């Protein structure tokens, strides 16, 4: 299953992911139309800054997700095949159990209703809007295996370069 991974060192904090996310979840689905909507669309991922770093936070769609476990109305559910955690807006009563239990703080509130709003991993898109919008490759849409391969290659390159430099010295 593909998931959204973050390469922290690459994030420039431009928040393009946030904007693309909000646009994708707007009524008009384009930037200029979304900018005119009242109320405005709500983003589902967040670029935070901490300890001098820029940190995009997006729902991890955890296995046996605690937000699903604590949901009293059955609004929050996890797709057994894709693992995507989504919520049924008609069942959500805004009790915020999910928000209180989420370790990443990525449960937001709808613009008009007191209901939970979270990443649905853009079911209509091949690549989630946030990943597509990221200009620096900080967000990666890949399987865990693919992502690890990517990171291994990056690490291997770094180690090889350092080894070469040492040898030269």
């Amino acid at each position, binding site marked *: 299953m593909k998931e959204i991974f973050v390469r922290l060192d690459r994030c420039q904090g*431009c*928040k*393009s992911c*946030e*904007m*693309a996310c*909000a*646009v994708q979840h707007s009524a008009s689905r384009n*930037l*200029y139309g*979304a*900018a*005119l*909507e009242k*109320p*405005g*669309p*709500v*983003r589902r991922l967040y670029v935070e800054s901490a300890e001098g770093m820029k940190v995009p936070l997006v729902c991890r769609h955890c296995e046996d997700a605690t937000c699903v476990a604590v949901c009293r109305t059955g609004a929050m559910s996890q797709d057994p095949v894709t693992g995507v955690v989504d919520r049924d807006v008609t069942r959500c009563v805004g009790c915020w159990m999910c928000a209180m239990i989420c370790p990443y703080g990525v449960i937001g509130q709808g*613009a008009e209703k007191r209901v939970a709003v979270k990443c649905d991993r853009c079911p209509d898109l091949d690549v989630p809007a946030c990943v*597509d*919008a990221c*200009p620096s490759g900080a967000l990666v849409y890949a399987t865990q295996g693919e992502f690890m391969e990517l990171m291994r290659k990056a690490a291997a390159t770094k180690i090889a370069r350092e080894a070469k430099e040492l040898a030269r010295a």
Partner: protein
Amino acid sequence: MAKDIRERSIDPASREMLSIAQRAGIETAWDRFEKQQPQCGFGELGLCCRNCNMGPCRIDPFGEGPVKGVCGATADIIVARNLLRSIAAGAAAHSDHARDVAMTFQLLVEGKAPSYGIKDQAKLERLMKEYGVDTPAALAEAVLAEFGKQKGPIQFTRRAPAKRLELWQRLGIEPRGIDREIVECMHRTHMGVDSDYVNLILHGLRASLADGWGGSMIATELQDVMFGTPAPTFSEANLGVLEPDQVNVIVHGHEPLLSEMIVAAATDPELMERAKAQGAAGINVAGICCTGNEVLMRHGVPTAGNFLQQELAVATGAVDAMVVDVQCVMPALGALTGCYHTKFISTSPKAKFPGMTHMEFHEESALQTAKEIVSAAVMNYKNRDPSKVHIPDIKSKCMVGFSVESIVGALGGSLDPLLGAIKSGAVRGIGAVVGCNNPKVQQDYGHVNLVLELIRNNVLVVNTGCNAQACAKAGLLLPEAADLAGEGLKGVCKALGIPPVLHMGSCVDISRILVAAAAIANALGVDISDLPAAGAAPEWMSEKAVAIGAYVVGSGVFTVLGTVPPVLGSQAVAGLLTSGAKDVLGATFAVEPDPMKAAALMIDHIDSQRQKLGI
């Protein structure tokens, strides 16, 4: 041909060269544009402020995140400030060009620029009279003083209809000095100065008027004096003007000060001889962008293409020297010319580029430098790699050279026949179509389709810049193109032997359009905003275009933009520009990417103006 290539341009020569470039692994602006996707939404909406180091700040357009910058600036303030800075940059570019022209003129009258001469004595005398001076030296002094004036007026603003001038004075936007207004833009947009979006935009209009009726107009008029006022002539346009067996020199950029000399040097017998000795059949000068338009208008020097063709020209492998001055020169040319034998020669102390050969140009030794540049091109001819040469066999004939003077000439000495045709309805109105190329729009699609739709509906089109080059390539600048026009316009064009689309010159020559509009308004005893006329910039991209748009609307002409300006982050600013300005200036902006719909907006406006005038 790959689908994406067809989607990049409607120009067959561009398509052919894009295929060649793709196969050769050559990167162009279109590729880089794709790599830039998605572009930053904050920038697109004008909501990013970098004016102080408490920032950069961004306003969340959705109202969920920050709605104010660190200083408290709202979306309205930030968008208006950014717009003002764009206007300042555009006005500065045109006006600094004009300054160089005026200083060259001064050197000429002082006898220190022997390469130049007076080509239009009558215009020189008219200008001296207009300025109330007796000598060319005094004219040079007076014109140069326009830049540093503190209290105005800028003389050429007196060409505007009295009603317009009174309006500017009432609004407090009559420009006081060219440099002053630009400087004030920078002051007002500094941290903690002007924080009222209406006040900011009013000053933006003032700075832009200092460009249109100041800098740009000075550039046009003095260039006419020194290089001749354009008169109708025929030439050719598109990449096919490059010659396989001649030394090809491309002049690219915006100022004619050097390119005029290059054109002269290219006919120098000694250099011609040297070219022959190198195995070339001759020396062929061709233009790109507005440097190209300047020499096209005055000498019929063929034009190799518009803005997005600068890289494609190099990719023909047949350009021996790409000679550039200022503005709209892509830094990418450095790396690109490195892939070919092409010498990339920069000439302005203001504009250096990666990979260039710098051959600095000075007015005092202009012709000598031009000869050295042409000589460098000649000596580079033998380095052409025949396996890399591919010149598309595509070019169109065009009729160019429609200065206001030559339009009046074509009309038989007065504007009356045109006014008569407008009153009778044979000519429904006038459309001024200008502006750049922009990879956001399929190259020339916006330009050509908008112009075609206008002439089909009997709107006489005047154009400049990259639009004029697009129309030249599309064959619309020919008297025969009248067959594509509506019956009324067709009849007028056939009777006068003119094209339905009149090439009035370079970007600074939009000042010619202002002069024409003022003359027509004065003849009818109305303001410019009362005329059955509309403007458009279907593929605009530069800050100069922002300044142009502002002075055209500020002068009272409804203007349709084909690409979205970065102002939609503020509904207040966008509303002011697209509707609120109507009651104040008698004109507004509209944004419409579809050229057919843009034409419809212009035609609707023209029709409503006709109704108000009772014609």
